[in-house]
């Protein structure tokens, strides 16, 4: 396997190169067609290779294989080779990395196929697939990396691709801003991640996760030792202010900061909703299925470190739960179909971290898997809806689509029920496993975690069904594909002017302006092409059966076991059982059904408008910032806070103080004063140059006399 495993990573890279130059080599028309085959092709080919590789990994000792990244080289080809640090170009194939590789290439491949239909009319389609393939390469590098440094390369790479793809339609400055926001917020997290990496090196002396001679970070962590053989629990670090913290805790927290940035947890989550400015396949692949889960993957990879620091676990769980709650609460009031899904993603990621925080890394990864299926499904489905609605993303202008695009409705239905946790669908199994583990948290607070998690699940079910009702079941708020005014009382107006709401993130200009450019002949709502529907069907099927198959047979657990650390490693154990598991199932089902039914009942009464609350009431609410509606709608004022703190105040600080005072005043002033002083001094001293030879001669005489006197005094000493 050593000889071809690198292909899994390199195939998408070759796809990237091919797509990038195809326009130059083949000419625009042929290039578009070729790219539409090559791009998904390389990803699906990588998927096949990943399957084969997984089989071979299962047969390897410890289920772990280290293979070279560079074709033809060995797994110990060094990238960095100092006596204090050695980093190899190697890939680590173990259950965790293969699971992620399968998800990335499998779901990614389906999304690529979908994108060939979705982006078919986009003039920049080759550029899209270039970036898309590059992303797959980077993500694979991230999950398959044998060491932190290669992981970080992939980490940064996916951040870059995310930026490139979010601002794909860069001609609209809003899209560019969204891309910037994503990248910059990510960067903040990366700072923590780099510091965490340095902490890892300082303790373990290496970046590799596992090495053949058991000197990798995780190998040493398993033995509770650092590089010098000291017990890990004894290591402490002195911070500013005389505070001492255990080094392991510090290390884990720093790494977690990086995960927060990448996986949109509090406090670095604000970029994800704005990232919906990118094309829908991007949202599906990057901001649902793969990139945002990189944080979870990284934490799971470092599970051997995290279980040894209960403090870090608590932090992870609490932040995860809080984020889950936050995301769900904001999703309750969003009007843009993609925004609802974005907040849903934030919320579900919170669940994954909750799982990691209580030591249930396996169930966290299980939720990653099922979430990849149904979230990609939901995003792609919403993309189909948007595609059919000619670019309209605002749910207030939808309605009645069930009859018009029944196939899309069907898959969205499956996705909604899966994410809500409807019994027997995949989301049910993964979410309940997490909640169950949370209840039995090894460091206490189990009941609180469980209750809040359960409430969040209720909210999840509610807002997802709300989405379904506003989009599909309520009466259409448009006629014959043309949108009509139903609120604001103005009848007969065709298109609601944009930007009516005060500065909210309702901008649908990302896609609407783009889609409106190309009419699909006639302008009526139509079903999406097979290239888009087929992946949807596959994902729907997976959303239905994946849970049962993987969970009840214990297949998932057994598969992933070699890649995650047991709680016992950190001298922790699960809390005692509060109630048997089947009771938990019943509770979860009740909550899920309750949420779904509640939404249905409420919206049933507002079939015409699709709004629970009349518009005037909302305007009223918007005037006071602490009204629940306003508070949620404005994302708990989080974005406003960041804008004011960092952009306004930071900007003022930078301009008034740093620029005007320090740079222009102090530094420039210092240099200018110096130069001025030189000028002034020289204006005085140049008067020596009188131009008269006699004066110069006098000067010479002066010097000679001085020398002579000096000489005399020197000689007199003899």
């Amino acid at each position, binding site marked *: 396997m050593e000889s071809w495993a690198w292909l899994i990573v390199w195939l998408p890279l070759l796809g990237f190169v091919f797509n990038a130059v195809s326009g130059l080599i083949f000419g625009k028309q042929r290039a578009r067609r070729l790219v539409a085959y090559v791009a998904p092709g390389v990803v699906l080919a990588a998927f096949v290779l990943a399957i084969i590789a997984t089989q071979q990994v299962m047969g390897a000792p410890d289920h772990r294989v280290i293979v070279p990244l560079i074709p033809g080289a060995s797994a110990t080809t060094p990238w960095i080779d100092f006596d204090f640090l050695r980093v190899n170009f190697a890939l680590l194939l173990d259950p965790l990395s293969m699971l992620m590789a399968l998800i990335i290439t499998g779901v990614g491949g389906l999304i690529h196929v979908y994108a060939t239909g979705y982006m078919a009319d986009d003039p920049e389609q080759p550029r899209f697939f270039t970036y898309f393939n590059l992303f797959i390469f980077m993500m694979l590098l991230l999950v398959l990396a044998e060491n932190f440094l290669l992981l970080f390369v992939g980490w940064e790479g996916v951040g870059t691709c995310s930026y490139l793809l979010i601002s794909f339609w860069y001609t609209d400055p809003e899209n560019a801003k969204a891309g910037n926001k994503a990248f910059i917020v990510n960067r903040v997290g990366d700072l923590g991640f780099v510091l965490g990496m340095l902490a890892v090196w300082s303790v373990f002396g290496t970046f590799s996760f596992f090495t053949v001679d058991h000197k990798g970070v995780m190998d040493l962590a398993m033995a509770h030792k650092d590089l010098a053989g000291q017990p890990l629990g004894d290591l402490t670090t002195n911070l500013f202010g005389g505070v001492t913290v255990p080094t392991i805790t510090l290390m884990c927290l720093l790494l977690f900061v990086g995960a927060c940035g990448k996986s949109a947890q509090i406090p670095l989550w604000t970029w994800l909703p704005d990232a919906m400015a990118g094309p829908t396949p991007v949202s599906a692949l990057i901001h649902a299925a793969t990139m945002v889960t990189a944080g979870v993957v990284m934490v799971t990879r470092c599970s051997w470190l995290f279980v040894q620091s209960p403090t870090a676990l608590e932090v992870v769980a609490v932040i995860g739960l809080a984020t889950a709650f936050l995301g769900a609460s904001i999703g309750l009031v969003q009007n843009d179909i993609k925004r609802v899904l974005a907040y849903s993603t934030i919320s579900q990621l919170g669940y994954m971290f909750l799982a990691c925080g209580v030591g249930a890394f396996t169930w966290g990864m299980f939720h990653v898997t099922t979430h990849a299926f149904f979230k990609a499904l939901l995003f792609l489905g919403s993309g189909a809806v948007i595609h059919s609605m000619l670019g309209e993303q605002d749910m207030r202008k939808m309605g009645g689509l069930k009859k018009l695009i029944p196939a899309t409705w069907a898959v969205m239905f499956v996705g909604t029920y899966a994410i809500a946790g409807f019994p027997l669908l995949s989301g049910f199994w993964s979410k309940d496993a997490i909640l169950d583990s949370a209840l039995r948290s090894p460091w206490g607070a189990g009941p609180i975690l469980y209750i809040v998690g359960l409430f969040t699940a209720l909210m999840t079910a509610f807002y997802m069904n709300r989405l379904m009702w506003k989009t599909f079941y309520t009466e259409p708020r448009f006629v014959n594909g043309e949108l009509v005014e139903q609120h604001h009382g103005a009848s007969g107006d065709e298109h609601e002017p944009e930007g009516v709401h005060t500065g909210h993130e309702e901008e649908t200009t990302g896609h609407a302006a783009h889609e409106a450019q190309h009419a699909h002949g006639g302008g009526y709502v139509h079903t999406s092409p097979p290239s888009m529907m087929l992946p949807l069907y596959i994902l729907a099927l997976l959303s239905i059966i994946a849970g049962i198959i993987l969970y009840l047979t214990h297949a998932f657990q057994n598969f992933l076991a070699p890649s995650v650390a047991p709680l016992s490693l950190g001298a922790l154990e699960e809390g005692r059982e509060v109630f048997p598991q089947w009771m938990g199932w019943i509770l979860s089902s009740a909550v899920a059904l309750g949420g779904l039914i509640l939404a249905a009942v409420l919206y049933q009464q507002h079939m015409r408008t699709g709004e629970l609350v009349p518009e005037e009431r909302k305007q009223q609410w918007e005037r006071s910032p602490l009204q629940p509606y306003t508070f949620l709608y404005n994302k708990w004022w989080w974005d406003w806070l960041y804008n004011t703190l960092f952009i306004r105040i930071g900007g003022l600080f930078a301009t008034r103080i740093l620029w005007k005072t320090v740079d222009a005043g102090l530094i420039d002033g210092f240099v200018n004063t110096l130069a001025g002083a030189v000028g002034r001094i020289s204006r005085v001293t*140049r*008067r020596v*140059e*009188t*131009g*008269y*030879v*006699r004066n110069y*001669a*006098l000067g010479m*005489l002066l010097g000679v006399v001085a020398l002579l006197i000096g000489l005399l005094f020197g000689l007199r000493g003899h």
Partner: protein
Amino acid sequence: MVPTPYYLVLAGILFTIGVIGVLVKRNAIVIFMSIELMLNAANLTFIALGRHFGQVNGQMYVIFALAVAAAEVSVGLGIIVAIFRLRESINIDEVNLMKF
């Protein structure tokens, strides 16, 4: 025999007078003549010390100094003539183009 220091002091006095002449006079030719005086004082020193040590080297130096002085005078006076042609004056204070 007159002790050597007498000659040295005398030469020093002549030299200083020459120096003062260079510094005080404005006529280029007179300045030049003062320089010749300085050269002579130096020659006197040479010869006096040569006689003091009983060597002929002092006088050899003087021979060559003499030759060089002659050459220098001819070229210098040529320069002064050239300047005079340009400015109709040999007041060296007027040659002050290097003034700040």
